[in-house]
């Protein structure tokens, strides 16, 4: 029996209902029962004083790698779900590029069960597009959705066969899930390990041109035209890609897309000195690309702010640049970065950032939540906009420390993360 909870006197920012005002939020039996002024504290209810704090629908990260099964030395579903909660996320979508790949209903059930057992952020499994993510034949898409998968993707080993991608986008429509793609033509990427350009040339590192991403963004958008299916484009990093998505949306393609914190903040200059915490895929690109991604997030071309949380053990990152794996962790820094480097810099207002981190991800993947409407899940993030804190990877709840933001001072942080009316994380807890 879940106790009642009253969140008292916070500034409720719920873009799904166009609310930005001081309200109380009452959660009963794990769902939102009332949002209003001067709600009386029910008997036996837990009261949270949110005076001076911001109360939003729970934040959702639709792009995380939790590494379990197979990569438990990097992260487990439990550590990842707790890291998510510590970052203010009430739900995450777990990528299926594990070992074994989540490409059948048993794999989906495993991720769901581990997520439930963790008792932190909700964990929604994603299934693979193709068996083993080998790009050859369709995985058990219907059965995986039946088991609880919220979307499919071959992120980590993207589908090169455009015919197979077309079939996936056609087939998935029966199940109302998006087909998520890491858009990258692996042939064009070659053995590139960073953005192709002057920095790569100087460092003697092989580059991936923007075209390697753009070719597949355009392919997927054309397949959207062809099939009418929902394509979700992951971690967009190029100016051309942003513009292509903008145009596709204008002509009615069913496309949603992500922007990742690092692509909004860094350029390939960050690779200088061969820092492997600046190695990710897609890579950090030019200043023009970074600015276009920012613009895309601002105007909603990129609907969703998602981290691509990619934990790696320090042994794996502690190598020469070309030999280290791609990716950085993001769950415990995304909100602070969004508030400090997106909202405080005037790119988005607070309500729009909450939209990109809650409403839009819920809509893109048809997830419960993303709103404080009465009857929706009691998933709430309570944010202290004024807290100045320093990123310290040594105290992360994530099992890994691979972040380029270590030591950064950020302003704004989740104070409480509430899932189904239960506090799963709070500052100092």
């Amino acid at each position, binding site marked *: 029996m879940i106790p009642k909870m009253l969140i008292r006197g916070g500034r409720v920012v719920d873009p799904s209902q166009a609310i930005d005002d001081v309200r109380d939020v009452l959660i009963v039996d794990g769902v939102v029962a009332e949002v209003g002024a001067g709600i009386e504290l029910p008997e036996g209810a837990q009261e949270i004083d949110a005076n001076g704090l911001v109360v939003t629908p729970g934040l959702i990260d639709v792009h995380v790698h939790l590494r379990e099964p197979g990569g438990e030395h990097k992260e487990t579903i439990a550590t990842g779900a707790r890291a998510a909660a510590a970052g203010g996320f009430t739900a995450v979508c777990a990528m299926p590029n594990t070992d074994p790949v989540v490409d059948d209903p048993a794999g989906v059930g495993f991720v769901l069960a581990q997520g439930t057992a963790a008792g932190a952020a909700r964990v929604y499994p994603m299934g693979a597009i193709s068996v083993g993510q080998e790009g050859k034949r369709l995985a058990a898409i219907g059965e995986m959705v039946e088991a609880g998968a919220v979307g499919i993707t071959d992120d980590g080993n993207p589908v090169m066969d455009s015919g197979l991608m077309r079939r996936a986008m056609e087939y998935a429509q029966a199940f109302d899930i998006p087909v998520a793609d890491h858009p990258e033509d692996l042939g064009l990427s070659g053995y590139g390990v960073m953005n*192709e*350009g*002057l920095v*790569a*040339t*100087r*460092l*003697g*590192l*092989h*580059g991936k*041109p923007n075209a390697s991403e753009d070719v597949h963004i355009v392919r997927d958008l054309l397949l959207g035209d062809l099939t009418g299916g929902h394509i979700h484009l992951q971690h967009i990093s190029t100016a051309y890609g942003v513009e292509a998505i903008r145009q596709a949306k204008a002509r009615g393609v069913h496309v949603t897309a992500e922007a990742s914190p690092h692509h909004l903040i860094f350029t390939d200059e960050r690779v200088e*000195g*061969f820092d492997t915490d600046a190695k990710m895929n897609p890579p950090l690109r030019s200043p023009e690309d970074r600015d276009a991604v920012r613009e895309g997030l601002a105007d909603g071309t990129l609907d969703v702010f998602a981290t691509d949380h990619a934990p790696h053990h320090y*042994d794996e990152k*502690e*190598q*020469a*640049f*070309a*030999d280290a794996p791609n990716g950085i962790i993001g769950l415990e820094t995304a909100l602070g970065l969004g508030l400090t480097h997106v909202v405080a810099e005037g790119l988005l207002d607070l309500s729009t950032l909450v939209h990109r981190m809650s409403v839009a991800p819920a809509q893109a993947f048809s997830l419960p939540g993303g709103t404080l409407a009465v009857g929706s899940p009691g998933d709430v993030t309570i944010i202290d906009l004024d807290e100045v804190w320093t990123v310290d990877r040594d105290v992360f709840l994530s099992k890994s420390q691979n972040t380029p933001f270590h030591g950064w001072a950020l302003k704004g942080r989740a104070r409480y993360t509430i899932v189904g009316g239960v506090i799963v994380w709070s500052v100092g807890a």
Partner: protein
Amino acid sequence: MSQPSSSLGKDLVGLESLSAEQILTILNTAEPFKEISERRIKKVPVLRGKTIVNLFFEASTRTRVSFEFAEKRLSADTVNIATSGSSVVKGETLVDTARNLEAMRIDMVVMRHGSSGAAKFLAERIPSNVINAGDGSHEHPTQALLDMLTIRDHYGKIEGLKVCLVGDILHSRVARSNVFGLLALGAEVAVCGPKTLLPRDIAELGVTVFSRVEEAIQWADVLNVLRLQLERMEAGFLPSLREYNQVWGVSSAKLEQAPGDLLILHPGPMNRGVEIDSDVADGPHAMILHQVTNGVAVRMAVLYLLTGGAPDTAEAAKEGAEG
């Protein structure tokens, strides 16, 4: 255990971070060391008691032997570690290797590694001096230094000369170190090769780009002809060695069109009949064996300077000859 600071700093990772003055210091210090190699007893006690590990993750007989001669002629104790048939096995990371070396209290490491940035990586993790003997496609500073010394021997200067690197610039650490070093010393630099083997935005470094070797020959005072790795064809960068030789290979017929004195350098080992024809390699323009000789002197200079030797006492140091 800390090393004495030198005019170069602790390590020689690349030429990009060096000033013109530092590069000239190395070249000038190499001059007195050239002479030691001409003696009957080719040994001075400058590095007596110093332990140097030559750590080669990639095979390179030529560079390793050159370093080893340089080390031995300065009386250092040397150990060679190569990936094949040694304790450096797959699975042992570069970090572990670094820690092991540190634990053995060696003074200096000369490293060749297949990954760009590996030398910097090691240098940041051990107190010993690190000399980069080639890291991936990044830098090979001693090769560029010996190339520059050879050019200077012939022309008496570097500044104002036109030097063109020909061939696979994309994968070449020799090319990058030459570009950085030559530009620092005021040379004009060009690159020439098929576009598939030219790195993106290379012109932004301040180099001229030629697509045909005939243009380079018209322009240059020096051609530095790079080795073409035969794997490049399988990877689809080129159609065939025959075609490469016809279009970008340096032949005496093409050299006849040179308007003036033109020096031919090659870092070796050569693919005769591919990037360079035998009559050129063995002809009057070629400085290839002179480069090999200078390689030992330049490496002696680097070893000497990094271990705290003063540039102006190099002349005196060589007088401490044994025997």
